[in-house]
């Protein structure tokens, strides 16, 4: 029972905050509400017996991504007006999204229900083993990707690129 109520609360929180993100007029507000969504999702993870993922979620998303986002918003904001998140064709988008939602819900409802497995939840140890044995290739590829992303971000944002200099001196 308590589980149901907890799920309802968390789910309501997530959906509400997500709606606020989607409808946010101010970028900073949007980012903050996203934080709420991510945080609530972390709670949900705990409820789904994935505490490690919840931790990661909090660390990476709420700690890292949120910070990045806020920094990004602040870096690109020059006045209130520009930070405003304009919107267009809300009706069409709404109809399409609702339509998709309807289809997904129908699909889910018509599928056979799966009951909670009683298997012991995966521990950090399991995940770590799995990462370094079964998925070691993907893991290494991911680390390469991260490296590339890091370098890419630096290169993209460097101000003193030679070609840029030539361009600016013109």
């Amino acid at each position, binding site marked *: 029972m308590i589980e149901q109520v907890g799920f309802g609360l968390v789910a309501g929180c997530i959906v509400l905050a997500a*709606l606020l993100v989607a409808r946010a007029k101010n970028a900073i507000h949007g980012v903050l509400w*996203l934080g709420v969504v991510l945080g609530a999702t972390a709670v949900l993870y705990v409820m789904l017996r994935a505490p490690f993922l919840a931790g*990661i979620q909090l660390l990476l998303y709420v700690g890292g991504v949120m910070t990045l986002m806020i920094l990004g918003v602040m870096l*690109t904001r020059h006045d209130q007006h520009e930070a405003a998140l304009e919107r267009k064709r809300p009706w069409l988008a709404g109809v399409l999204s609702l339509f998709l939602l309807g289809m997904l819900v129908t699909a889910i409802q018509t599928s056979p229900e799966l009951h*909670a497995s009683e298997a012991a939840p995966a521990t950090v140890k399991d995940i770590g083993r799995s990462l370094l044995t079964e998925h070691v290739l993907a893991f290494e590829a991911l680390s390469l990707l991260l490296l590339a992303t890091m370098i890419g971000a630096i290169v993209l944002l460097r101000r003193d690129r030679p070609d840029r200099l030539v361009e600016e001196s013109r």
Partner: protein
Amino acid sequence: MTLGLCLILSAALFCIGLYGLLTHRHAIGLLLSLELMANATNINLIAFSRFRGDSMGQVFALFSIALTVTEVVVGLAIVILLHRAYRDARVGRASEFRH
């Protein structure tokens, strides 16, 4: 709490993200919406992991989170670049690339 409910929640989150993706003009807004959608998929993964008793879902979610992070990093870099170039990060401006 059933798998169906989790999936419906995930679907709802995904559709909200989609709605945001379709309506926002500002690059930051787009990134936010994308995050919502990514989160929706992660919820799915974890839910399946829970209900099937398979740790694989969590591992996948882990990868997914990492990928999302890289996406945000590159996305933000582009947003900043756009802003530098146009003093504005509304994606409509960048449509002059097509000429």
